């Protein structure tokens, strides 16, 4: 009796899953600007590939039941299965297994990769080629390089980063909580008054805000009046060009 | 003075002794972890005494009241 319904419902499930999995293939993402962005896109697609059949199962069960088990009058009785037998246990094992799998595989393993220091506050390696101190304030960012060169909305007007170099941002804030987010790099961490957070990224492609809006530092934590325009353009260039830019900024200051 | 009142008095004396012991313990022990754990355990013990003897928590699962 179940079989008669199980097969068409399963077919429906497969069809909806197949359509849904198109989302996995589709390119929904902004420019892949860093190694971390590569990881993010991959994990996002992986979770999408797992999530789509789950949601498709719910859709298929509801849609099929609404079609096959509908009743126009209200006085017909359904079957009297109570579901206290083996099926809930199987369900528990399957959902539990799925949860445990997702927990371990992209979750904890991904976390392992992101955190090199268990007691610090931040993402990525603690060692880096370029170290930048980023300070959030209402409503602008200031970036200070290791040699003391400052970049902000008046001076420099854009943040230039070297490609294929590890860049570490040490982040804090002078007033309220901000969040330093670079969509092209898929990385973000809050800027909090009183403690220094950090994130290390490695840009992999050249690009600039003028051509691609995902190359920007964006404040992602509501920080007051002009929160939505608290962003800062980024340009990723080759290392020699970066050195040149940094030097020019220095001479410009003198 | 009834037996119930006597019981309350005894509990209060125990609590007072514990409080003074707590005070002496805290001012004499210098190792902070030991001190913290000792204080926490004493506090939980005192709270349990008050909940049971003064606040009659057992009456929650006793259907009818005993006067």
């Amino acid at each position, binding site marked *: 009796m179940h079989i008669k319904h199980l097969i068409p419902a399963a077919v429906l499930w497969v069809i909806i899953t197949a359509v849904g999995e198109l989302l996995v293939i589709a390119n929904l993402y902004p420019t892949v600007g860093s190694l971390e962005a590569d990881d993010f896109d991959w994990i996002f697609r992986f979770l999408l590939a797992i999530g789509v059949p789950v949601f498709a199962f719910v859709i298929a069960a509801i849609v099929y039941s609404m079609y096959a088990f509908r009743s126009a009058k209200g006085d017909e009785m359904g079957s009297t299965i109570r579901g206290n037998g083996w099926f809930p246990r199987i369900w528990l094992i399957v959902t539990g297994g799925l949860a445990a799998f997702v927990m371990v595989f992209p979750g904890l393993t991904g976390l392992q990769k992101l955190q090199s220091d268990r007691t610090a506050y931040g993402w990525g390696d603690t060692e880096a080629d370029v170290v930048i101190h980023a300070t959030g304030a209402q409503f602008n960012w200031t970036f200070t390089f290791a040699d003391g060169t400052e970049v902000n909305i008046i001076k420099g007007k854009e943040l230039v980063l070297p490609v294929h170099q590890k860049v570490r941002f040490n982040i804090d804030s002078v*007033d309220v909580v901000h969040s330093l987010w670079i969509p092209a790099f898929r990385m973000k961490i809050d800027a909090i008054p009183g403690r220094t957070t950090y994130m290390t990224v490695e840009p992999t492609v050249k690009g600039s805000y003028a051509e691609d809006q995902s190359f920007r530092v964006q404040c992602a934590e509501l920080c007051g009046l002009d929160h939505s325009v608290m962003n800062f353009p980024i340009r990723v260039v080759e290392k020699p060009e970066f050195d040149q830019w940094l030097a020019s900024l220095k001479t410009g200051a003198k | 003075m009834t037996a119930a009142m006597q019981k309350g008095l005894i509990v209060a004396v125990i609590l007072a002794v514990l409080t003074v012991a707590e005070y002496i313990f805290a001012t004499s022990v210098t190792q902070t972890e030991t001190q913290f754990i000792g204080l926490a355990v004493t506090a939980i013990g005192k709270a349990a005494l008050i909940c049971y003897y003064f606040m009659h928590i057992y009456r929650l699962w006793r259907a009818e009241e005993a006067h």
Partner: protein
Amino acid sequence: MYAAKSVSGGIGLGLIGFYLGLGFIALLRWTLGYPEPWGGEINIIGGYIFGLIGWLMGVGMWGIWGREWFGQRTYPRKAPGWQRYFTFNTDHKVIGVQYTVTFIIVFLLAGALAMMMRLELANSGMQFLSHAQYNGTMSLHGTLMIAVAVAAVIGGIGNYAIPLLIGAEDMAFPRLNALTFWLVPPVAVALLSTPFLGGMETGWTAYPPLSVTTNSAQIMFDLGIITFGLTSILGGLNFLVTIMFMRAPGLSWGRLPIFVWAIFATSWIALLYTQGFAVALLLIALDRVAGMAFFNSTAGGDPLLYQHVFWFYSHPAVYIMVLPGFGMALEIIAHFSRKPLFAYRYAVGAFLGILGLSGVVWAHHMFTAGIPNYLHGPFLVATELISVPTGLVFLSALGTIWMGKLWLKTPMLFALAVIFNFGCGGVTGIFLADVPTDIHLQDTYFVVAHFHYTIVGGEIFGLFAGIYYYFPKITGRMYNETLGKLQFWWMFIAFNVTFFTMHLPGVQGMNRRIADYQSGLDTVNLIVSLSGLFLGASFILFVYNMINSWIRGPLAGDNPWQVRTLEWQVSSPPPLENFPTPPVVQGHPYDYGVPGSVHGVFPGQKLGGVPVVGGGGGQ
């Protein structure tokens, strides 16, 4: 005019109390030698507290309750007809209707704010709101909607249905119940006053230090929400005592309707965790008013303290919102499938499991907030664990409709939509629970889409299911089925187009709570805005259908859905103390199609010498 007396008394005494409090604090400050005793938020706090007390006393609490504390006789006001909805009434059915109608109004108001936001966001650049106005609109929308989501189902449908479902004559503490409702209007006044004080800047999360340095709208938000927390706690307490002690004879825990279980679990969460929000906002108020240093990092405070305390409440609050929605959906699905609720014990276990886990997952809202790295792992694991009990709710719902006889009336459609929407919200939750993806998605429109799927999709759809389901019981009249179904499909399609599309700008780099965004996101935002406005329009149909049917709808009869539970065995609307003769429960509420099964009987009641047997459901 009882209603006019109540309302004008409340407003009058409230205003008097407000100015009294204002002056009292000013006097106090003056005698203590402070400069400018008038200015300052401390005066507002004093005024609010005195005004609140004045309002409650004026609205009828003094005569019905207060006199008793001073050893005097009380004078209950027994208002007739429609007027009882405007007085301090202790009947749970009246309070349920008061809650439902109030929160539908708040919902529509907050929805109108959302329409304003979508108009502003239809295109990049600033349209017609300033940055400050946008922040105020967005914060107010969030706060009001959170209030609706926390209280509408449990306060409205829960108050109306729980005593009926368990065969009790009222709630355990009827006067406390009335108090919880009459605390709500001052909350609305406090929150709606914020635009006149400069508008909130902080969103409903109110993160310090911004919430400490921002304008005085914040203090009204604090006061309003602390009051609201009080109603939530007292309401939860009342439900717990009612469900534990007032079940009809024979209604064992194993026979409890699933909606009652959902409210039971929700009430525990509301009772225990709501204090977290109160503490968080209290600390903010103290930082603002008394210059304390909880969140001032230069004086030894820590802004992250707030986030921990706040999310310690606000994550469990998510379950205060969705569990009643789940309960309502499962209840309706079982009745309208004409089939026993599939895996009843597992569904109960799911609610209790969520209750148990709700308190240990809060820091997943703070994955990118700069918490120490060793906290991420445990909270990731705990968060993923929640998907297991949630999965059992799906098991129960899907198992129930399988091989049933689905009677696809409007409540059933809404109940199925709860399961559908939460399916999407649950799956997108995994992306946010896994730290590697959450780093990018945190604070983007992906999160906005996710929580609208879970809360609007899971709870507001459940609220509508409940309203349509109980409409004939509450009013005695039937709503217009065609309009109901039309509204369902309209709302369902518009909702899904709006919020499914909204995931996309999130992934592509649109952060939330912004008045303006990058021009590259124009197209997708226009789609979201248009369909959002379309969604907003669907509620006009709902309001029309409800008002029209309440006045002119055909009589519904006692049990139009042919349902077995106790509330449908009495007249529509039910009499004052619900059951003319007390019911006795003899079987499971969902045993549809089981030969010879009954749920409740009314032994004391004789019609022609034969005991009337309730719950023949469908015969």
